[in-house]
């Protein structure tokens, strides 16, 4: 193994590590906004029988059955056509938000279906209004039931945010390409980058289980 030379990568390690921050920011923003949208979509299909439920379902069907990359491309090219100028960074965040909303709505919907039916009547007889019932009872309960699935999707988003590099965003993968194209040590930089993604992912698993345990203690 004489061909590998990591030195040019290590001298640029700080620059590469900066990309980790961008990656977490993209995935984090898309996850938070996606979750907010998903709550709306899930409540919409839970509360309604007809058109609204079909619309919400169709949204998830459409966005979970097409590539996320195409969706980001659509945002990237269509928003400027409509006169809205957005940065590549924002296009990626918006595209990933719309995609996340579709998946997270399905996850939350499944969680809400598992809320015991009697909770709704209990909330009603306790005098909670609909908004209070969702915010205090249904969503927290569904969120806890579905926590592993939600955390899992965030991890997928962290790894999937590498697509941002295609649009010129300097995330972890974007910076790795930069280093690769200036040093020609593509294999080395990609090995290190892969390792960084793995570390990030493991760290998140730790953070999630810590978060979960804290949440369970804070009842």
């Amino acid at each position, binding site marked *: 193994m004489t061909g590998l030379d990591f030195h040019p990568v290590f001298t640029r390690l700080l620059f590469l590590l900066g990309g980790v921050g961008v990656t977490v920011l993209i995935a984090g923003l898309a996850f938070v906004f996606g979750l907010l949208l998903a709550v709306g979509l899930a409540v919409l299909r839970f509360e309604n029988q007809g058109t609204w439920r079909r619309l919400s379902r169709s949204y998830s069907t459409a966005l979970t059955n097409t590539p996320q990359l195409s969706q980001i491309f659509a945002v990237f090219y269509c928003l400027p056509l409509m006169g809205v100028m957005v940065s590549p960074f924002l296009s990626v965040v918006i595209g990933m938000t719309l995609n996340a909303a579709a998946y997270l709505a399905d996850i939350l919907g499944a969680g809400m279906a598992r809320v015991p039916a009697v909770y709704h009547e*209990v909330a*009603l*007889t*306790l*005098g*909670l209004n609909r908004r209070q019932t969702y915010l205090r*009872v249904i969503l927290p*309960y569904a969120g806890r039931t579905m926590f592993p699935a939600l955390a899992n999707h965030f991890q997928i988003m962290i790894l999937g945010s590498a697509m941002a590099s295609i649009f010129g965003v300097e995330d972890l993968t974007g910076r790795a390409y930069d280093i690769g194209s200036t040093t020609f040590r593509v294999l080395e930089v990609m090995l290190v980058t892969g390792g960084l993604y793995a570390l990030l992912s493991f760290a998140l698993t730790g953070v999630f289980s810590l978060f979960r345990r804290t949440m369970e203690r804070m*009842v």
Partner: protein
Amino acid sequence: MPYIDVRDVCVRHGKNETLRQAGFDAERGEIVSFIGPSGSGKTTFLRTLIGLQPVWRGQMGVDGRIVDMAAPASARILREQAAIVFQQYGLFGHMSVLRNLTLAPTVVAKRSRRDAEHEARALLERLGLANKADVLPADLSGGQKQRVAIARALMLRPTLLLLDEPTSALDPHKVRDVGVLLRDLAQDGMTIVQVSHAMNVVSSLSDRIVLLEDGQVRAVGKGRGCAAQLPDIAAFMNTHGGDAAADPAGLRPDPDH
């Protein structure tokens, strides 16, 4: 005029009348039991009293204040005066016992958290659950869950406490504990309406017994020991695993004292 006066309650499902002109009355601090075969409408009747079951017609008087149960706005009024303990209890699994009790007082009645928690802890202590305030419902036994559900209902300071099958999920020796608790609450002035299948408890606990059949009130017994006096009720109870004259749970106050 009786303290609680429910009259002429009709419930329709399409052309089916599941409840026909049902009614009962009760004085303050009395325990009323709805009994009857399954499908007789007793749980439906109980649910009408807290606006969970829309009625076609009916009125309910509480302490002289009359509510038209068929009016769209009646549900809110009914829920202000009554609280219900469901058969499955329905304790919120993601909240501590204490939060289950303080949720409605703080979120709906806008009382301060501190004030609500103070009352909740006192109530838990009274029900023998002082050390359970901070645990999750999943860590409670069936009997404890029920006590917490009763405590949560009492936090609403209801005029009328409704219980759907309070003894169905309990061990026989726990059934007696619930009976003692309900008797205690009634003595403090709480009016209680329960649907029950446990005839031993019904006969020893009830001040009034309402026998329903086919959505109609077939017989009403008044006073302790009424179960044995009315042939319809005595017959029903004796065929449903109870002895109308017996008091095996020992809940009837001793007349010599």
